């Protein structure tokens, strides 16, 4: 299992030494895709993925994650750059000649063929004998629990079952890299939650490289060994889920991951290790030893919702890292309570343990005091 990486990886930075040197795995080098003159769907991406890793490409629609995946799979040709798998470039190779296989968002099953024939398709294209393909198909269908439905056509299957067929179809190919394009997007929520756990377990069992594209950040956190957050064609941050969650690098990542309160303002003071920032409704003081921020410079910081402490209004709010806010909505989610607050027009989120719910029930409209520690303030790159 890859080490917890507390170092974040920025685009262009060199990859962890141990992986790059061996020459195995998937390497994206300066990968660029332009549609037309000016629009770069994917802009100069550099990334290394090791075999056995579960990597998630995460970002809003239009950020280039799907295009990147399609380029790896061979369904799009890059405008610039290279894709190297185990030392060999994949450029110019059509999808049928690449050792990658894709699970499509809408499953892309062959409607005129039965489930079994769908799964046997890949081996058939490889010229494998009828008896052997049959066997392989049965094994794959067993893996996904659909042997009983092998002779049905896709239109006779539910969405979840169709997705499992898509999985079986792909697994039977034993690819070097499994590409998943929003694989859970078409499923009902409950099924999504179930299937993402299954995907994770499956990947562990098989030890295959999984590259999974999604815009659901909870899904990304749940399954990924490493998450690649993308925005407008570029990589914003690459790190393990814990780092991405707690140590976002810039405004895009912090905002997209959700549950972050972002303050943008100017630096008011820089004394020793501490930087003070005027963030509008609140003054923030952050512990930032490496910062070279000068007074007057713009700055952005974020505070995790779970780091926000909620207390009685009566205590007042003077000094840095605290402010008064009004409760707008109280969301009880079982293990925790999410408070949606507003302070001077801006919206904030705080998370408190679930057993504090009685304290907030029915308290919409009342004022509370919000505060947080200066260690919990995270400086964001612009």
């Amino acid at each position: 299992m890859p080490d917890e990486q507390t170092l974040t990886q920025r685009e262009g930075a060199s990859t962890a030494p141990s992986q790059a040197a061996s020459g195995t795995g998937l390497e994206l080098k300066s990968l660029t895709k332009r549609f037309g003159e000016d629009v770069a769907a994917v802009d100069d991406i550099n990334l290394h993925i090791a075999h056995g890793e579960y990597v998630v490409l995460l970002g809003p629609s239009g950020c280039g994650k799907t295009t990147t995946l399609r380029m790896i799979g061979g369904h799009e040709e890059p405008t610039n750059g290279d894709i190297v798998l185990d030392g060999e470039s994949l450029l110019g190779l059509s999808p049928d000649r690449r050792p990658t296989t894709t699970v499509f968002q809408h499953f892309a099953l062959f409607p005129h063929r039965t489930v079994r024939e769908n799964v046997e398709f890949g081996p058939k294209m490889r010229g494998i004998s009828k008896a052997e393909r049959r066997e392989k198909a049965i094994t794959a269908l067993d893996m996904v629990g659909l042997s009983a439905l092998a002779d049905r056509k896709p239109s006779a299957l539910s969405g979840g079952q169709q997705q499992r067929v898509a999985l079986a179809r792909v697994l039977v190919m034993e690819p070097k890299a499994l590409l998943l394009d929003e694989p859970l997007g078409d499923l009902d929520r409950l099924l999504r939650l179930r299937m993402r756990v299954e995907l994770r377990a499956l990947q562990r069992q098989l030890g295959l490289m999984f590259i999974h594209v999604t815009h659901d950040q909870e899904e990304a956190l749940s399954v990924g060994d490493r998450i690649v957050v993308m925005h407008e064609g570029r990589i914003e941050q690459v790190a393990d889920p814990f780092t991405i969650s707690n140590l976002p690098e810039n405004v895009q990542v912090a905002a997209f991951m959700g549950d972050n309160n972002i303050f943008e303002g100017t630096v008011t003071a820089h004394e020793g290790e501490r930087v003070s920032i005027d963030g509008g409704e609140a003054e923030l003081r952050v512990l930032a030893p490496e910062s070279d921020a000068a007074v007057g410079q713009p700055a952005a910081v974020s505070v995790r919702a779970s780091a926000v402490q909620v207390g009685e209004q009566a205590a007042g709010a003077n000094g840095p890292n605290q402010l008064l806010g009004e409760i707008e909505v109280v969301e009880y989610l079982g293990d925790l309570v999410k408070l949606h607050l507003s302070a001077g027009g801006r919206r904030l989120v705080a998370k408190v343990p679930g057993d504090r719910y009685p304290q907030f029930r029915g308290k919409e409209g009342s004022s509370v005091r919000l505060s947080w520690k200066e260690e919990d303030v995270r400086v964001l790159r612009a």
Partner: protein
Amino acid sequence: MRRGRWTKRILAVYFVLFLLFLYGPMIVMAALSFQGPQGAVTFPMRGLGFHWWNELVNGSRADTIRETAIRSLELSVVSGLVVAVLAFSLSMGYRRRFRLDGVLFYLIMLALMTPGILLSLGTSFFWRFMETETSLWQTALGTNVVWGLPFAFLIMVAVWNRYDSGVEEASRDLGAGGFRTFREVTLPLVWTGVLGAFLFGFTLAWNEYDRTALLAAGDNTLPLEIFALTVGSVIRPDLYALGTATTAVSLIGVGLFLFVAAIVLRRRARSVEPREEYGELGTDGTGVPAGAPASRSR
């Protein structure tokens, strides 16, 4: 991927050649209609001018042509109306399953596949057997409608497929009775289909020969007249002018329909379609997650 692009290019060239094959004769005919008085049936072009168009409108055969054209127009308009009404009502029935829906469907498809000559022959036999004198309106109207009906029916079925019956339920929920709902909700949403059905009925009747041929008994429609002029007598360029004119009428009819449909569809798309964008970064800083899309049942 490069190979895919070449396929597309070759196919595109083939498509253009195909269009030339389809439209070529009509273009040639149109060109020849603009010859001068020396003009003949084939190339080369002799002179240039509106002589033959003038001949068409004012010449010796002009009167019969005008008479048949008007007859054709009347027949076609009525055909179109009947087709629209029948197609609409048939398709309304098909919004649900019912016992004979398979049989009826094949009957409708049969209308598509029956050669016109069988229809006109059979119909003429039928009335002869009944020993009744008939006019175009009892015979040709019937068979022309039969021809246009399956096309119009398929259009209406497609319209109903896209139609969300939920709006009717919503309308009732809000207090509108059956008829009111029909008039205020259903009709406005499907009228373009009905218009399409009418146009199909109209243009198909306007051009129909086979199904009218053995039924006219002297009262020619335009296509019948054209046939007579072609086979029975000397072909002159005024016939080409006539041909060009009738083609123009057909194409204008189609063009009109598309124009109307495009406008309606564009207006509807802008107002009704939900925005597909999700996961935007505009989370206004409160940390509301850029969540997953609503589940879609396949």
